[in-house]
Every structure is written in C-alpha cells, then in structure tokens.
C-alpha cells in the first residue's frame, strides 16, 4: 500500500517545477548562441526577458524545498533528492545568468565588424549545451550512469576553452584592432566553459541523489 501520498505528490511537483526551470535555462543558452551566430539583437532581448522568470522560479523552487524539509522531515533518498534539487536549482539559475552574459557580449559585438574569429563558439556551445541536456536527462531518469558520462565531457569543454584563450590572445597580439571582438569572444568561451561546470555540478548532484555518493571535487565515482 502506498503511503505518504501528499508528500510524494509534493516531491513530484518539486521535480516538475525544476524541469520547467531547466527548460527555460537551456532555452536561454540556446537563444544566446543563436544570437551570437546570427548577431540578431532581438534574440538577445528574449534572453534578457527570460532572466527574471528564471529568477522567480529559483525562489519558488527553493521555497518549495524549504517547506518540504521543514514540514515532512524527509529521510534517505528523499532527503538527498531535495538537497540535490536545491543545488541543481542554483546551478540552473547560474546557467541562465551565463546566457544573459553571452547575450550582453553579443549586443556589444554588434557595434563592431562581424569578422571570422579563430574560435568555434557554436561547437563549444553545442558541447556545453549537450552536457546540460544530458545532466537533465540523468535527473529525469534518475540515471547515475548517464550523469557519470557528463563528468567526462567537462574536460573537452575545458580544452576547447583553453584553445580559444590561446588563439584569441594571439590574435589580439597580432591584430590589436580586433581586440574588442576577440575579447568578447573570449568572454563568451569562458561563459560556455562555466555552463559546462554547472552541468557537471548537476550531474554530480544526480549521482548523490541516486547513489548517495558525494563525487564532487574529483572524488572517485564508486
């Protein structure tokens, strides 16, 4: 016989709310990259508009989690789930912030000539977005294996960001007149690298929830 029906319903509601938040953060990143690719400032506007909505969702989810902790005294997997939701919530909000940062850079780049830069931002973006998507898939399916695969992708994103740093700083040295475009691209690469870090955090939280193992800071995955 199922018990604690109301509590279970509340956990389902919390998960559903977080997934709405996840969808919005993911969409914001995709839009910011689309704006970079097309230099379409109207898409930047959509990213800016999504920020307060994401922020409101963050507060709402935190409140729901706090209420459950206070009122239901969750244990074991339920306790781990709620703690993970609180952390994932914060990471998703930061993903939304990175999208806004990218959109700000794209808007700034609009003032300068659109030139070919020695960095594949869409490729970096696609990898970082894939990490977020996979981490969220792991969360939806409570699948620690999928979450683990996200951790391995982070190194690739870091390498691409490092490569972007070297090639863009070389370009600045060679062609100082391209400094504004190069610096903006450099910051966008850094923003995307941070998106990868947030996806990694989300994946680690899924592993904590599902397996009860804390694998943060390169602790061995058991």
């Amino acid at each position, binding site marked *: 016989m199922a*018990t604690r029906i109301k509590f279970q319903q509340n956990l389902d509601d919390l998960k559903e709310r977080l997934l709405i938040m996840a969808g919005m953060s993911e969409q914001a990143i995709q839009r910011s990259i689309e704006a970079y690719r097309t230099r379409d400032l109207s898409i930047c506007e959509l990213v800016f508009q999504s920020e307060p909505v994401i922020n409101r969702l963050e507060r709402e989810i935190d409140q729901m989690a706090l209420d459950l902790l206070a009122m239901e005294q969750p*244990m074991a997997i339920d306790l781990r789930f709620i703690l993970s939701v609180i952390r994932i919530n914060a990471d998703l909000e930061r993903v939304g912030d990175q999208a806004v940062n990218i959109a700000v850079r794209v808007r700034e780049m609009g003032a300068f000539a659109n030139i070919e830069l020695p960095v594949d931002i869409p490729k970096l973006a696609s990898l970082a977005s894939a990490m977020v998507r996979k981490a969220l898939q792991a969360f939806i399916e409570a699948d620690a294996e999928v979450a683990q695969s996200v951790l391995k992708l982070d190194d690739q994103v870091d390498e691409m960001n490092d490569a972007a740093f070297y090639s863009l700083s070389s370009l600045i040295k060679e062609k100082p007149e391209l400094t504004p475009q190069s610096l903006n691209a450099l910051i966008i690469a850094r923003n995307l690298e941070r998106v990868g870090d947030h996806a990694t955090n989300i994946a680690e939280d899924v592993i904590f929830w599902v397996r009860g193992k804390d694998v943060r800071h390169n602790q061995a995955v058991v």
Partner: protein
Amino acid sequence: MGVGINVEHLNAWYGTTHTLQDINLNIPANHATALIGPSGCGKSTFVRCLNRMHETNPIARATGMVKMGDVDIYKDAQPVQIRRRIGMVFQRPNPFPTMSIYDNVASGLKLNGFRNRAILDETVERSLKSAALWEEVKDDLKKKSGASLSGGQQQRMCIARALAVDPEVLLMDEPASALDPVSTSKIEDLIFQLKSQYTIVIVTHNMQQAARVAENTGFFLNGKMVEFDSTHKIFTNPKDKRTEDYITGRFG
C-alpha cells in the same frame, strides 16, 4: 562505565509465535544505540531479552547468547543480578505513587539492602543530578510524592531511579513518546550526557529522535534485524530497500 553487549543467534518466542529470529548484534559500550521499526517488529522484545525481562512472561522463552562484557547473561548470571547491572526506563513514567521523590529514587538501593542514610542521601542527590532533575526538586525531596511531578519530571525521576543502582547499561523503551516537546528535549539532552558513563539502548518510533541521540541504529522488521549501521548511514543512505521504505514512510 558502560559495557558492550554482544548478541548472537538470539531467538525469542511468545507461546508459538517466533517474535525474534536469529538476531546478531554488537552494541558498543558508552554509545547510544537506537532500535527502530514498526509496531510488533520485535524491538521491545529484544530489549526485554537484554535484561531477561522477557522470560518473566510465563509463555515466553528465549535462546541464544547475550554477553554483557564477558558475562553470558543467560548462562553465567541470575536475572536479578542482571537487572541490577541494566536499568530500564519505560514509555510511561511509572513512579511509586505513594512514595516521596526521595524514596522513589532510593527504592532500588533499599530493595538491595542499603540502609546507610549518608550513602542513600549521596546516591539520591547524584542520581537526580545525573537525571537533570536535582535543581527542580531538591527542596521537596521528602515533601512531595513522585506522582505529583509533571510527566517529564516523573520520567527523569524514573531515570534517576534506574541510575541509583549504578547500572552499566540503560535500556529505554520509547522514553519520550508520552512527553511534550520540551520534556522530550530534556530527555534527549540527558541521553547525550549519560552515554559517556552508560551504554544506552533506546527503542523509539520517533526517527528524528533516533537520528538526534544515537550513534548507531538498528532496523527491525517482522522479528528480524534487517540492518544495523551508523545512524548517519541509516538515515542518509541505508543499504536495504526495506529500511529505506520504512524511514521514508513508504512502508505500507
């Protein structure tokens, strides 16, 4: 000082009902160990086997080994000797209603033949201090009856009564379930303080209480001990699905 308890292949019956089935467990000295599980799972029977109270029921019997330190309590000792070394506190405070607070606390010693007034005075004071009740009752020790105290005070008086005979182990069968939150906190604080001197085994239905007071927790179900581990492990990441279902409240 407390003493460790080693239980091996403990089985217990009420009539033909096999209430405890092959329990194996090491209860460390000077720690609080919580026993949790649904009603009828055998946890109270288990603690009653630890001080041979189980066998006071004519249709009950037990087999297996329970060692308190080096003493096998079913082979090497008489029940009365054992109960002197193991104090017990029950769900509802059970003061002797016609006795004063002083006589309630001293009753165990008097039953054991102590008559020396100075020793009795000293023991009553020490026990009431250990039970965190001394300051509240020191002026009324012989004036007030034990039954005139509040429920929480009565329970602490019963703990003082158990401590007066200088036990090594304190068994507590849901000691705070009939108390209000403030009295419950006082009992929990007391358990925290007492475990440096005694080995404490506490049966509780309140899982937050187990999490707050005990270093180790055992989960009983249908007469078996499903899981025994550090309280931290049991309440954050238990190994057995049945333990998880119980502590998360999904146990139907």
